[in-house]
Every structure is written in structure tokens, then in C-alpha cells.
């Protein structure tokens, strides 16, 4: 099975994240950048499927030059090769533009199965798998907490508000996964060493036949007009329980009209 895993480099969500002051895009240059956490589960799922059914795992990313670090890190977990879409004109792409570029790259990769994390921790927009499915005319099974591959038939359990849905589709398909689906492996020392020599091809917009005016800030279909930092929350009253803590809590709730 030919599997492509979508990987995004994002600013570490455990550090302070900011927008650039010049164009209100995510400040990636000053951030501490990491692999989007949810993508590690997609990589793990791809490797498990490869181990069971054979095939090849390709990591696909779109991002600035610094994203190459995250790609190498992804490769150290075990995928075979990587493709990095790199072009200055991509800066500021909206979801629609990003999906156009990723879809063009995916057309060249001929995947049976495309795996992705259910969301990225920077944008949390959650639309990419369905946007890609729409463009590629393939199945999208999103929010999977379990995935079974039987030949060309895929069965997934999709987490919903009420419980879960069981979905089936045939390959080619795109599946996005939640962090409940598996436990990602840690890269081994050997994996880290091997990752350095695994093939990493770089594609530009010209390679994909996309006009720069259709993507990036130039082709964005939405814009941030203004961005404001929210004032930090401040600590309120803190009491130490000496036998009346529960009563004090309820008094507070009553004063705020919750009780």
C-alpha cells in the first residue's frame, strides 16, 4: 500500500505563539517549531499499516525552509521518503490555497491512502482532509479513533459528539486520526541516523504547475484585518481549606448566581 502522511510544522503550543505584526500571519520565524502533535499519530498509523500490509510511506509537507527539520524528525520514526513543497510565494496561504497546493502534490504521488492528523494545533481549522477529498474526488474518513485495512476496504470508527460512527470506504482515501488511535513510537538512534540519508525531494509551485498569484497572501480568500492580544486572566480570590473550603466555594458560586 502506497501511503502518504501529511505533516505540518507548527509553533510549539506549549510556548507563547504570536502573529507577525506586518501581515498578521503566524510568526513561524521566531517560534519554537515542532511537528504538529496529531501528525505523529498519523505517521504511527501509516507505519503500522506498512508493517502489516507492506508498501511505502511518504511524508508530505508544505512550509518554509525550517519545516525540513520537522520532516527529518518525521522520517526518523520510520517513513521511507519525504516531499517538501517549498516556495516563498506560499507564505500567507489560506486553507483553500493550501489545499490547492497539497492536492496538486498528491496527484503526483499516487497514494492509496493519505493519512493526516485531525487538526493542527496552530490553526485548528480541521478542514484540510475534506478539502483535499473534494479536490481529488476521493473518500475522506475524518476523526478516526480506529482504522482497519482489509485489501482495498477501509473501516474507521469516527469519534462524534454522541459516541462514534462506523464508516467504510474503498481506497484511494484520506483518513484523519485523533490521538486516541495509537501510541506513536519514539525514533530510535538508528532511525535518527537513517533519516539523514532518506530521500527528500523539494517541489516548487512551478514544479506543481500552480501560478503563485493563486496562493499565499496574493491568493488568500480571507484576511486578518486586525489582531489584538487578549489581556491575561488574573488570579482572583484564593482560600486555603481549613475545614470550610467547600462552603466558601458555594458562597462564591451563590454570589455569582450559579447556585
Amino acid at each position, binding site marked *: 500500500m502506497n501511503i502518504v502522511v501529511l505533516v505540518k510544522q507548527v509553533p510549539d503550543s506549549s510556548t507563547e505563539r504570536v502573529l507577525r505584526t506586518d501581515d498578521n500571519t503566524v510568526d513561524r520565524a521566531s517560534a519554537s517549531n515542532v511537528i504538529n502533535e496529531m501528525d505523529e499519530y498519523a505517521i504511527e498509523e501509516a507505519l503500522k499499516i506498512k508493517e502489516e500490509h507492506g508498501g511505502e510511506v511518504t511524508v508530505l509537507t508544505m512550509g518554509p525552509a525550517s519545516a525540513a527539520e520537522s520532516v527529518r524528525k518525521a522520517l526518523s520514526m520510520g517513513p521511507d521518503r519525504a516531499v517538501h513543497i517549498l516556495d516563498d510565494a506560499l507564505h500567507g496561504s489560506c*486553507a483553500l490555497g493550501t489545499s490547492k497546493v497539497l492536492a496538486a502534490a498528491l496527484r503526483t504521488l499516487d497514494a492509496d491512502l493519505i493519512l493526516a492528523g485531525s487538526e493542527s494545533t496552530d490553526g485548528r481549522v480541521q478542514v484540510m482532509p475534506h478539502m483535499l477529498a473534494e479536490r481529488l474526488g476521493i473518500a475522506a474518513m475524518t476523526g478516526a479513533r480506529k482504522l482497519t485495512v482489509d485489501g482495498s476496504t477501509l473501516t474507521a470508527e469516527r469519534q462524534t459528539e454522541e459516541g462514534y460512527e462506523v464508516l467504510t470506504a474503498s481506497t484511494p482515501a484520506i483518513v484523519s486520526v485523533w490521538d486516541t488511535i495509537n501510541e506513536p513510537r519514539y525514533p530510535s538512534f538508528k532511525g535518527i541516523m537513517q533519516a539523514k540519508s532518506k530521500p527528500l525531494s523539494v517541489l516548487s509551485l512551478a514544479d506543481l504547475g500552480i501560478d503563485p498569484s493563486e496562493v499565499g497572501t496574493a491568493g488568500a480568500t480571507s484576511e486578518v484585518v486586525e489582531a489584538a492580544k487578549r489581556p491575561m486572566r488574573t488570579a482572583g480570590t484564593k482560600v486555603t481549606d481549613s475545614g470550610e473550603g467547600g462552603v466558601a466555594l458555594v458562597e462564591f458560586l451563590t454570589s455569582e448566581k450559579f447556585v
Partner: protein
Amino acid sequence: MSEVLVVVEHSGGVVKKVTLEMLTLARELGSPSAVVFGEPGAVAAVTDKLAEYGATTVYAAESDEIAGHLVAPKATVLANLIGQVSPAAVLLGSTQEGKEIAGRVAVKLDNGLLTDVVSLAADGTAKQPIFAGSTVTTSKVTKGLPLVTVRPNSLTPSPAPATAETKAVDTTVGANDTLVKVVSRAAEQKGSRPELTEASIVVSGGRGVGSAENFKLVEEFADLLGAAVGASRAATDSGFYPHQFQVGQTGKTVSPQLYIALGISGAIQHRAGMQTSKTIVAVNKDAEAPIFDLADFGVVGDLFKVVPQAVDEVRKRR
């Protein structure tokens, strides 16, 4: 007045709160028209509620193909409807499915999309909290009409009774819309509690709760307050509570009127999912726990002493 399309979220004949919030918002922008997807017969059950909140038109998109396949048929029907009625704006819930439908419609119509908005003005500008609520952006769609997903609990829904006319919608879909079959749907325990992202009050437990068994105390307090139950990642990863109730960066984002954190230290992973709550209350043994930095009221103490006492006290006051 131009129409504003509101895609209805409903389950088992009950309209979800986010839809009532969207109808309330839509009334500020134009004439609200509700779009209901479901199996044949599903629409009649929800029409009255939609009219009560101001829907003057209910577009009924009923078919087995819509009910039996994931998302894609809904997007096709919605995109066609948008083409026919040229609405002033299209609102969907900022839920997994709402975002997914919106994403597909955005591609079909080559139309910009804004997700997770908490307000939308008549000029099309929307406010979006980003980076776990630490920054708020004012954004707008610059290509096409305002296609936005609205975060639950962003405004207070208010009724404005109207007479709704039901209109059947063309539900023809394409071959690519039926690639993913929904084989079955299963409900998991939740009982009569409100949905996590919609609840006005959320009571969450963390590592400090200690066990799945002990989560009964969290549930008891929640039920007493009519609240939803949430859990930190530490609690769900330890198997104390099911994953779908996780609040945080990799779980649900909630923004209730009141958030009560029990035995939760307040790691950034958790704060990302709850720090836009209106009022925050915390109980934790560790006086230095970061959760106290954002709590409006904090009790430093053993939650197994503080919470049972609070439960008794609430009962006494009623």
C-alpha cells in the same frame, strides 16, 4: 432583507444549542433561513423550534443518501442551495462536521472560509480567538460571501417567534459524494448531561481525581449544577474518563459561563481548551498549581474534602 443560511445541528429530534445561537446571530444580519439535513421525516420534528428562534424558511434536505454517508452529500446540497438563493451569509456550527461541510463548500464555490468565529458583523467582519484564546483576530472573507463556522456558547440564544415556511430542497448528489458509507452509529454514555461544548457549566477532573471510580464525585457535583463533565488529558490518558470528554489543546475547546477545575494543575495543554470560560473556579492540593493564576476563585485543599462539602452545601441552600 437577504437570507442568512443557518445549517442546523440536531440529533434525535432535538435542535442543538449552537443552532439557536446561530439563528439569534442570523437575525442581526438578515432573514434567518434554517437548512436541515436528515433522513426522510427528520425535518418535521425540529421545525417548531427553529421557528421559535426566528427561522422564516426551513429548507428541508431529506434523503437516505444524506443520512447514510459522511458529510459530502450535505456539502453538495448546501453549495447548490447557496447558488440558488445567494444568501448574505452562511453560518455553520464550529463542530467537526460543521467545519467539514464548510470546507467542502469553500472548495466547491472557491469561497473563503472563517472557522471558530465568536461574532459576525453586518459588514462581514468576524472575531476569532486564536492560539488558545491568547489573541483575538478580526477577519473577513475576501472572496465570495461570508462563510463562517460559529463556536458554540459565543452568544446567548433568545427566542423571536416567526412563522416558518418549509421548502423541500433538491437533494441530488454526485458519485463522489457517496464514497464513505456510515455503517452504524453508536451512542456512548453521557446520560442526560448537556453536551460538553454547549454546556453553560462544565465541571472537570484531572490527575488529582486519582481513579475512574473517583470521577463519580466529579459527576455528582456536575449533575447537581446541571453541568457537563470534562477531564484533563492527564485524566483521560490515565483511563479515568473517556477521551471524548477531554478538554484542552488536543481535545475540546469549551467556553462556558462557569468552569470548575478539580484536581487539575492547569498545564498549558489544558488551559488552551478552557481559558476563555467566563468564570473559572479551581480546587487543587498544590497552592502553586498554575490553574490558580487564572481562577476567579480557588480553594487550596483536598478535593475529596472540599467537593463533598460543597455538594452538601448546595443541597442545603436549595
